[in-house]
């Protein structure tokens, strides 16, 4: 099922005082940005967690504490750092990423990576040494061993991805700063997410609509959790 289809089926349940397509488009932007950011983050984090889980090197504890600190890093600060980076005056200014979804993906990537790495690492470290040694004894290459470990740790890794996704989709500070909370004048979101839309409603004292959008956000997180749990139970991890 494509993201767009999910996004379009959800708001049918709620009737809000918004223009047609508004809620659908902010749900779409929320999912698009968070899913892309978390996917990239996962592709980055799992190899890092594997490498850290399989090797010992000086300063490993320090790297771990840096990652753990990153889990609690305030999203507004990340937003400001990304703003300085992608702003016209910043090192990536030439790319003109400010007030785009790409900038939002960058900041959510930064936010989601520490929890995904830390929780994956814990899961990978938790896989019994016997499993690794058995895989190695059966003549497995490094890659084979890694795949076996991933398979054993898949629930933990699934939790890690969900934690990262939860952080990304519920985060408001950084996407507001780097995305700009923009919709077109027809009310179709460009960089407005559910969280920044809630912030906008609250700013105007429209607490009821803010609450309804909040409920939509919670529903989406629930659905995504459900999907990931299902994949963990049956899915593509069994090769």
């Amino acid at each position, binding site marked *: 099922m494509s993201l767009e289809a999910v996004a379009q089926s959800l708001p049918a349940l709620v009737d809000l005082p918004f223009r047609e397509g508004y809620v659908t488009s902010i749900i779409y932007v929320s999912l698009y940005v968070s899913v892309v950011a978390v996917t990239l983050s996962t592709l980055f984090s799992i190899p890092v967690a594997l490498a850290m889980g399989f090797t010992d090197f000086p300063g490993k504890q320090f790297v771990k504490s840096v990652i753990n600190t990153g889990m609690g890093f305030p999203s507004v600060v990340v937003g400001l750092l990304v703003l300085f980076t992608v702003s*016209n005056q910043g090192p990536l200014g030439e790319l003109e990423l400010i007030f785009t979804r790409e900038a939002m993906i960058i900041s959510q990537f930064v936010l989601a990576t520490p929890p995904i790495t830390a929780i994956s690492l814990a899961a990978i470290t938790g896989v019994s040494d016997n499993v690794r040694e058995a895989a190695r004894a059966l003549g497995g290459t490094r890659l084979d061993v890694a795949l076996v470990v991933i398979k054993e740790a898949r629930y933990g890794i699934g939790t890690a991805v969900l934690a990262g996704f939860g952080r990304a989709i519920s985060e408001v500070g950084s996407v507001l700063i780097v995305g700009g909370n923009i*919709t077109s*004048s027809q009310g179709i979101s460009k960089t407005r997410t559910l969280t920044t839309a809630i912030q906008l409603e609250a700013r*105007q004292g429209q607490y009821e609509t803010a609450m309804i959008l909040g409920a939509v956000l919670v529903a989406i997180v629930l659905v995504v959790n459900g999907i990931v749990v299902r994949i963990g139970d049956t899915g593509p991890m069994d090769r």
Partner: protein
Amino acid sequence: MSTAGCTGGDDGNSEGEGGSQENQGEQAAVAGETLTLTTTTSTYDTGLLDEIHPQFEEMYGVTVDAVAQGTGAALESARNGDSDVVMVHARGLEDEFMRNGYGINRRDLMFNDFVIVGSEDDPAGIQGMDSATEALTTIAEAEAQFVSRGDNSGTHTKELNLWEAAGTEPGGDWYQETGTGMGEALNIANQQGAYTLSDRGTFISQRSEIDLTILVQGPIEGGPEILANPYGVMAVNPGVHDNANYDLAMAYIGWITSPGAQEAIADYQMNGEQLFFPEAISEDPDFQQYVPEGWSSDSADE
């Protein structure tokens, strides 16, 4: 929003692509481009921009990305070259922005006014005062709750100017800086029975949600001139930021100060009341609108 023939995807092409797209549009050379406007929460949250922008977008085949930030932040984004045009309401900050070379071609755009609002029981007794500074002094003497935006916005700047004019230094438990937008500040004032300074537009758009009432009127309803709230629009100087989409910014300024758009601003109503009063068009030229207030060209020969 269609970008046929554009390979970049529409969310990737932000402002300032003048060079790369010139050959693509079949209509005007600007077609398909995006203008980034940083502006204040009052112009955006009242719904004015969404109401009038479609006309501009259709006329030029472009998209306007309006980013509502508050005057201080809107100017800062422009200062960093992250927007093409700014629409704000704090002449002092606008002047500084221009003097520093970041903004050019400023035009007076429209105005409304500020009002001092509070709960109906009016604990400090300021209702009907003709002087905004006297009202603030009375609030300070009574140590009645006052909510300040505290966010370097146009309204906050105006509030600080008023305290200064009143010769009173606000501070103490009764004076709260919230660091929020106007709507939220009104809500906080509403919940605490506090006074606050609001632009009339945001107050009208939110009046049905809150129990606050206007205690000191602005000049639109015969109040003191000091509560006037003029909005200006400026292009980002392409000499400082060469990525700024200057052509389109000037097209925007030309359009929004045109009779058609000015009429649309005048016609925009909420809860049956006009929120903004156009002032771009006049028979008598006002040369001061283009330059920082009080600026004169003593060194120029011509």
